[in-house]
């Protein structure tokens, strides 16, 4: 096989797609791997800020302390190189699989977010999400519903009653809140008429008054609550409530596997934030700058426009990440029965009601506009 | 219009009294009931006069359709002819008198609305019976009067005996009614109509050649209908209900069980005389039953102590005469006796009722006696009544009874026995009626002191009707004077000719009957009359001598001399006991057997046995039930595999 063949092979349509996919996946993975360190730093600096103290600000390279940003890097290194202890009586296989599963699902979901509008490379249209499905929306729901396995299995495999309790709580909680989550998102599917996330973003346009949050405020409200429950974050962090269950499902985890859980949790947070941005806040749309205009501003270079959009998406998602942190240090933890009651007796009925109203309004609106 | 009012008034009275005005005083219900009937009587009288003025031709009054199914038709059609007209007058007329009387008789009762409602309903039903133009409308009345009789006999229902008597009356009547029903079925089967007028036309029209089957059927029809008549007119062997029916209030006995209802059988046979003429066998049976009943009941009456029982058996006996009359083809004589009997028997019953009221509802004649001086009017009218019934020359019974006996003798040689029985019964009749009179009104008073103190004549409400009836009893006989006696100003056999349009001898047998009538000399008739008058006189004298002062020596010694016969008679030939032990009890035992053994043990046993057999099989086969899910699943899978294998290879 000569060089020409290789070039030919590499420039064939399929190859371009494959290469693009690999590149996209790499980018996503790298991106996601950067989230925990930043967030760890943020989660330390933010409360410090709220509590009028300094927080980590020492670690740096020489004199460049970078507001303690490198503290996270140090922690990561420490965590990875720690000795690995597997508890006796643990189910070894499951014990090992669980964190992998966790990370795996988190990354899969991350792959389905549209990070920018489609771009054209070598005459090939390439979407900016690694997994581009016309049921992308369902895919995200499906994959995020799998996230519970990691937690559940971890708790069970640890052979520790606190872990088990934590995982039981986690699984019940996640199943319970998955339903309102779905309920809160379905109205948007009805409104935008598509399951393709990128099309949803396009449908929202660049103007905030046509974004999802304006069109379906109740949905956003529900989704916002579910975001916390789904990621087991405060105020719904009962699965790991340290005052009750030591550390919940990951009590018996340490070293790299603990890091994996850590990673998956932050990735999940990011994914949900990105999803919120995508569905409710116009995704990669630059506010008040329609894509056509953006394209013109970017000298007609679609990759540049996409990059700008990507940055805006990160910005929007970042806001929600910040809200996570903010809420964590603001609100107390729920009690378990309150959590369940909230989910089943409050969120679900409202979600159903919201769904019904939305469907009605859309149906009436459609009928009116058609005639 | 007037005609419909006849029917309407009694029904209205019954409705108002029975369902609407339940809380009113007895006087109001009495006035209401009575005035309804008097109104009906007035209407009936007017209608009747109108009818006679119009030439007295039978007319059919068409009413609404009633039952219509397939080829069967039974509309509410009514027939107004000389026979039903007469009955109309008897029913409403005597009924009115009895209603008036009942007000006095029942004045101690608290809630008489029920009584008058039943009475009015009875009159309505009776009117339906006599007016109906077809067998089915007649049957409504036929059963309806039975119902009213049931209700009235059981009027004092708190006494279980009365309720039982009412039920007995209803059931025995029902036996007859089944005969009547079968008669209707047969009639419809062979003649395809149940209307009297159509039937009559069919039988009488010269062109109608009845085939053998139909002739034979007529025999059965008449026989079946006669069974009905037996039930209603209390003939052997179905007479048993009538004596028991005396449990009802006395006006009821007078109206229903003497004057009207019980004569329904005679009315029906007269109405269908053209059929009976064609069935000589039935006629023979009818005559025999009538004669036997007349004598049989008369003998029982000889020894009864209860005043109403005597009258009851007397009624049965007199009905026997009427039936005998019908049996020998002397329908007009039968009806005439019906008429006279209605007058004097109503009189007797009402008189007896007055006595009973005076005696504080004691009915035993052994406690009476000498009432003549306390109740002169009652005594007088009762005397007239007794003389009328025993056939004292000049009074109505004489004319009517002797006519029947004469016609029995002349009906043909085969009827001489029946005549004998009838004559004998007449002798008995005079005896027991005179005995009744003597024991009640003559001699010393045998009642207790308390009763004696309160003995007095009844009020005018009660004796007024009695006087009217007494006059009628004395007078009506002259309507049908036999042709051997000539009374100036009176046409002989007025009544018989009056009924001629109704009595229609079919052409097939006409010759035979005309032949019969012409055959006998006048002297024979005189002789026959003399025999019965003599018998009457002798037995009356015997009774007077025996009972002129209570139970005399002769009476007691006769009683002890014929101890066995006396006991048999006192116990009414043990007929009730016979029925009870040979019909009712076996039926009851059989029913008990059917229920306890056949139904519960055998049939239900089989049903439950099948169920238990399955449970047993199930229990046995459940040994293989391990209860293991996997076993079951495996069996299932193996089964499916086998099935699929069979299916595909």
């Amino acid at each position: 096989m000569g060089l020409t063949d290789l070039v030919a092979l590499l420039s064939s349509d399929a190859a371009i797609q494959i290469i693009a996919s690999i590149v996209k996946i790499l980018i996503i993975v790298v991106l996601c791997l950067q989230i925990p360190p930043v967030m760890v730093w943020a989660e330390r600096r933010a409360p410090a800020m709220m509590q009028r103290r300094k927080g980590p600000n020492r670690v740096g390279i020489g004199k460049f302390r970078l507001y303690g940003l490198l503290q996270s890097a140090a922690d990561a290194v420490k965590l990875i190189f720690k000795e690995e202890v597997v508890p006796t009586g643990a189910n070894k296989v499951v014990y090992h699989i669980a964190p992998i599963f966790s990370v795996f699902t988190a990354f899969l979901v991350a792959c389905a977010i549209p990070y920018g509008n489609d771009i054209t490379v070598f005459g090939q249209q390439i979407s900016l999400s690694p997994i581009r499905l016309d049921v992308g929306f369902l895919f995200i729901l499906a994959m995020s519903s799998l996230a519970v396995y990691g937690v559940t299995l971890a708790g069970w495999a640890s052979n520790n009653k606190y872990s088990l309790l934590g995982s039981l709580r986690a699984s019940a909680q996640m199943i319970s809140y998955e339903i309102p989550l779905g309920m809160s998102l379905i109205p948007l599917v009805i409104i935008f008429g598509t399951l393709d996330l990128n099309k949803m973003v396009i449908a929202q346009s660049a103007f905030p008054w046509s974004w999802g949050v304006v069109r379906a405020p109740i949905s956003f409200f529900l989704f916002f609550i579910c975001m916390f429950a789904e990621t087991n974050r405060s105020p719904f962090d009962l699965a790991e409530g340290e005052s009750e269950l030591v550390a919940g499902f990951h009590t018996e985890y340490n070293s790299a596997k603990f890091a994996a859980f850590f990673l998956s949790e932050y990735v999940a947070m990011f994914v949900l934030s990105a999803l919120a941005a995508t569905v409710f806040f116009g995704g990669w749309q630059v506010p008040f700058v329609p894509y056509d205009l953006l394209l013109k501003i970017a000298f007609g270079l679609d990759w540049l426009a996409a990059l700008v959009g990507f940055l805006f998406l990160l910005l929007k998602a970042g806001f929600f990440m910040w809200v996570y942190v903010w809420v964590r240090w603001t609100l107390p933890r729920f009690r378990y029965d309150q959590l369940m009651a909230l989910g089943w007796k409050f969120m679900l009925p409202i979600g159903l009601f919201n769904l019904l109203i939305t469907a009605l309004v859309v149906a009436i609106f459609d009928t009116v506009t058609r005639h | 219009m007037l005609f419909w009012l006849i029917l309407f008034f009694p029904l209205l009275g019954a409705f108002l009294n029975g369902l609407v005005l339940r809380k009113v005083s007895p006087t109001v219900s009495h006035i209401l009931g009575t005035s309804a009937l008097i109104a009906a009587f007035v209407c009936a009288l007017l209608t009747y006069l109108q009818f006679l003025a119009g030439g007295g031709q039978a007319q059919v009054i068409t009413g609404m359709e009633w039952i219509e199914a397939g080829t069967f038709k039974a509309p509410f059609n009514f027939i107004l002819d000389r026979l039903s007209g007469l009955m109309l007058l008897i029913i409403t007329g005597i009924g009115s008198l009895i209603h008036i009387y009942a007000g006095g008789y029942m004045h101690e009762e608290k809630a008489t609305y029920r009584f008058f409602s039943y009475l009015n309903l009875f009159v309505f039903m009776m009117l339906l019976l006599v007016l109906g133009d077809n067998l089915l409308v007649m049957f409504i009345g036929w059963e309806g009067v039975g119902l009213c009789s049931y209700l009235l006999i059981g009027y004092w229902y708190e006494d279980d005996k009365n309720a039982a008597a009412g039920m007995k009356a209803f059931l025995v009547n029902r036996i007859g009614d089944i005969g009547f029903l079968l008669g209707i079925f047969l009639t419809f089967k062979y003649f395809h109509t149940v209307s009297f007028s159509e039937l009559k036309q069919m039988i009488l029209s010269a062109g109608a050649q009845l085939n053998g089957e139909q002739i034979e059927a007529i025999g059965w029809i008449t026989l079946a209908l006669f069974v009905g008549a037996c039930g209603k007119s209390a003939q052997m062997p179905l007479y048993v209900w009538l004596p028991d029916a005396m449990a009802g209030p006395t006006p009821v006995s007078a109206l229903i069980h003497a004057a009207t209802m019980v004569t329904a059988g005679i009315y029906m046979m007269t109405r269908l005389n053209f059929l009976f003429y064609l069935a000589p066998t039935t006629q023979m049976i009818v005559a025999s039953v009538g004669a036997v009943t007349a004598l049989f009941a008369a003998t029982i009456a000889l020894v009864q102590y209860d005043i109403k029982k005597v009258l009851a058996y007397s009624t049965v006996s007199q009905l026997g005469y009427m039936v005998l009359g019908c049996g020998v083809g002397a329908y007009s004589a039968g009806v005439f006796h019906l008429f006279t009997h209605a007058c004097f028997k109503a009189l007797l019953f009402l008189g007896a009722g007055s006595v009973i009221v005076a005696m504080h509802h004691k009915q035993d004649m052994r406690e009476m006696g000498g009432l003549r001086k306390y109740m002169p009017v009652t005594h007088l009218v009762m005397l007239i009544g007794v003389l009328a019934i025993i056939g004292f020359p000049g009074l109505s019974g004489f004319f009517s009874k002797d006519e029947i006996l004469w016609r029995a003798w002349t009906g043909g040689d085969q009827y001489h026995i029946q005549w004998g029985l009838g004559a004998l019964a007449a002798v008995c009749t005079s005896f027991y009626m005179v005995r009744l009179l003597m024991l009640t009104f003559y001699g010393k008073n045998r009642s207790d002191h308390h009763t004696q103190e309160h003995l007095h004549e009844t009020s005018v409400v009660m004796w007024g009707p009695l006087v009217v009836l007494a006059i009628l009893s004395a007078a009506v006989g002259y309507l049908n004077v036999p042709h051997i006696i000539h009374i100036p100003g009176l046409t002989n056999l007025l009544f018989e000719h009056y009924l001629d349009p109704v009595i229609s001898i079919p052409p097939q047998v006409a010759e035979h009957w005309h032949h019969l009538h012409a055959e006998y000399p006048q002297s024979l008739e005189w002789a026959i009359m003399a025999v019965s008058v003599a018998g009457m006189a002798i037995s009356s004298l015997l009774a007077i001598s025996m009972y002129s002062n209570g139970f005399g020596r002769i009476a007691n010694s006769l009683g002890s001399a014929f101890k066995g016969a006396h006991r048999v008679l006192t116990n009414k030939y043990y007929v009730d006991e016979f029925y009870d032990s040979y019909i009712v009890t076996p039926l009851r035992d059989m029913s008990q057997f059917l229920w306890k053994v056949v139904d519960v043990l055998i049939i239900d046993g089989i049903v439950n046995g099948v169920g238990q057999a399955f449970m047993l099989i199930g229990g046995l086969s459940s040994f293989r039930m391990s209860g293991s899910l996997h076993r079951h699943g495996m069996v299932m899978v193996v089964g499916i595999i086998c099935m699929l294998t069979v299916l595909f290879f």
Partner: protein
Amino acid sequence: MSQELLFYSFAGLIALCSVMVVTSRNPVISAIFLVGDLFLLAGLYASMEAHFIAAIQILVYAGAIVVLFMFVIMLLNLDPDQRSQVQIAAPEVGVLALTVIAFAVVGGMLVFGQPTGVSGEMTAEAINSAGGNTFTVGMVLYTKYLWPFELASMLIMLAIIASIVIAKKDRPKSATEGDKRRLAHG
């Protein structure tokens, strides 16, 4: 070529997972393999252009049903000695053999029989031109199968109520005497 590769690899994994589901001694492991099975099946569905079903498969089956299984397994937290053993006695062996043979026969018929049809009649292009898999399934579901769909929703409601009622706690706390006797028999 790539499709066959995909199929064979997935099929192999599915078969493996299926075997593991049934043979694992630990129910949790079984459940994990079941999830794997479902996941892989979803992959197969996706390869057959049934994206909607694939997503639903994961969403409902893997995301809800098996989680429920897992939840119950953990809730009951069975003692090790009560974890199931495969007991094989003589009749069971017979049934096992018979079943396997029967299925083998069916499988053999399928392997060596003529393919009754070839894939590819529902190509990605055809589906996309009709509005996408989800759209087309939706059209069929809400027109032709509207009534079954409504009935299915009723069924779900009934199942929800039934599960709540059955699993509610206010039933007799302990086994009655009769139950104990039965258990003793068992």
